[in-house]
C-alpha cells in the first residue's frame, strides 16, 4: 500500500470524512481549520476558514454541495463545499461535539457539550436547500436533553426521524428525533465512553469504538451486539470497509499515558479485523501518536487515518487487497 501523507494541519485531527464519490476527503482539527483534499493525489483543494476553536466534527451531504461543522467556539456552521464560503452560523451556549447529515440531506443533527449549568443537548435542524443555502432557520426543528449519561456521538438511523446516540457511559440509544423520547437503549453496549459511530451504507447496522478497547457492530433496529472486536488499546475510531469483510480500528494510549509506559505499548497502528470472524488480519503503521479518526472511501478503494500527530495518511489499496481471500471462498453479504 502506497501511503500519501497530507500535511496541512498544525494540530491533532478530530475527524475525517470522504464524500460519497470518494474523490474528496474532508478533515478537521484542533487548529481551527477544515481542509478538503483530492483523494487520488493528496493535493489540497481548499480550506474552510472561520472557526475560532477546535473543530470537533464535520459531515458532507450526499451531493457534495454542503458541508456542516461543529466547533469548540460554540458554533455549528454550514459551508458551500465548492466555494469554501460559510453560508450560515448557529450559536449555542456550549461547544458542538458532533454533527451529521440525514440520509436525504434535508436535516442535520448536532450534539452540544454539557458545561457550566447547561445540559448536553441534541438539536435537529431542517436544511433549506433552495438558493445558495444561506437562508436557514435559526430555530431547531427539535431540541432535547437526553437524561442520564451525556451523548457524545450521534447519527440518523435507517428509519426517518430516529437518531442513534453513543454516550459517555458506554450506552447506545435510539431517540425519536421529533419528541426526544428514548425509544430503545443498550446500557451495556460498552464499558467506557463511546468514541466513534459509523453506519453501514444501508444504515441497517453500525460500528462503535470505545475507550474500553473494543469495537462493536450493532443492529440498528434492535441495538443488539452482532460482533465484538477486542483489542489491547483504547480505541478512538472504527470504520466499516465496503466490498470486503473488514473493519478498521484505530486508537492508542493518549500522549499523557504513553510517557509513563513503554513506547511499544503506544501501538499507533490501524488494525484490520475480519468483520465476521472477529480476528485481526493485519496492521498498518505510520502515525507517531494515537489515531483519532479513520474513514474508508465509500468506493472501497482506499482509506484514510487522522492522528494526534497532526497528519492524515491516505492508503490506496493494492490489487492484492482485492484479490486476497484469506479465509477461502466464502460468499459474504455486504
Amino acid at each position, binding site marked *: 500500500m*502506497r*501511503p*500519501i*501523507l497530507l500535511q496541512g494541519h498544525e494540530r491533532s485531527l478530530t475527524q475525517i470524512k470522504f464524500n*460519497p464519490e470518494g474523490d474528496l476527503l474532508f478533515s478537521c482539527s484542533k487548529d481551527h481549520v477544515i481542509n478538503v483534499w483530492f483523494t*487520488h*493525489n*493528496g493535493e489540497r483543494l481548499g480550506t474552510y476558514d472561520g472557526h475560532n476553536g477546535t473543530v470537533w466534527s464535520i459531515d458532507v451531504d450526499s451531493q457534495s454541495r454542503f458541508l456542516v461543522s461543529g466547533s469548540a467556539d460554540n458554533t455549528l456552521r454550514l459551508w458551500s463545499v465548492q466555494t469554501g464560503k460559510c453560508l450560515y452560523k448557529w450559536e449555542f451556549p456550549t461547544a458542538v461535539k458532533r454533527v451529521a447529515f440525514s*440520509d436525504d440531506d434535508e436535516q442535520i443533527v448536532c450534539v452540544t457539550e454539557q458545561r457550566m449549568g447547561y445540559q448536553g443537548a441534541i438539536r435537529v435542524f431542517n436544511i433549506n436547500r433552495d438558493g445558495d443555502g444561506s437562508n436557514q432557520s435559526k430555530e431547531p426543528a427539535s431540541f432535547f436533553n437526553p437524561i442520564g449519561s451525556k451523548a457524545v456521538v450521534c447519527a440518523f438511523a*435507517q*428509519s*426517518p426521524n430516529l437518531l442513534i446516540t453513543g454516550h459517555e457511559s458506554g450506552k447506545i440509544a435510539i431517540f425519536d428525533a421529533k419528541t426526544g423520547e428514548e425509544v430503545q437503549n443498550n446500557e451495556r453496549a460498552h464499558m467506557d465512553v463511546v468514541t466513534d459511530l459509523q453506519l453501514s451504507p*444501508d444504515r*441497517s*447496522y453500525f460500528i462503535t469504538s470505545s475507550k474500553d478497547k473494543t469495537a462493536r457492530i450493532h*443492529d440498528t*433496529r434492535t441495538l443488539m451486539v*452482532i460482533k465484538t472486536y477486542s483489542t489491547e488499546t483504547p480505541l478512538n475510531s472504527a470504520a466499516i470497509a*465496503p*466490498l470486503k469483510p473488514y473493519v478498521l480500528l484505530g486508537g492508542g494510549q493518549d500522549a499523557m499515558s504513553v510517557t509513563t509506559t513503554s513506547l511499544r505499548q503506544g501501538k499507533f497502528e490501524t488494525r484490520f479485523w475480519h468483520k*465476521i*470472524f472477529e480476528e485481526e488480519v493485519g496492521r498498518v503503521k505510520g502515525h507517531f501518536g494515537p489515531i483519532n479518526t479513520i474513514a474508508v472511501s*465509500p*468506493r*472501497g*478503494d482506499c482509506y484514510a487515518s487522522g492522528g494526534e500527530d497532526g497528519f492524515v495518511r491516505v492508503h*490506496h489499496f493494492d*490489487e492484492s487487497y*482485492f484479490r486476497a481471500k*484469506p*479465509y*477461502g*471462498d*466464502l*460468499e*459474504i*453479504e*455486504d
Partner: protein
Amino acid sequence: EDAAEESNVSAELIAQRKRLVDEWNAWRIRCRDEGPKRKGKENGKKEEEKEEIEVWIDEVIEQIEEEVVE
C-alpha cells in the same frame, strides 16, 4: 480442500467459519427484507453507485518520500 491447504487450518475451524458466515448472511438478508423500504428514487441511485464501484480504475499516484525518525 484447497481452502484447507491454503489457510492451513483444521476442518473444524473451517466448519466454524462457514457457520459464522451463514449466520451473518442470514441476518443480512433478514435486515434487507424487514428493514424500512427505501424510496424508489434512492434505490435507483444506489444501484448506479454499485455499478461505478465495479469499474475500478487503478491510478498511479505520485510517490512521496518520507523521512522516518527512529
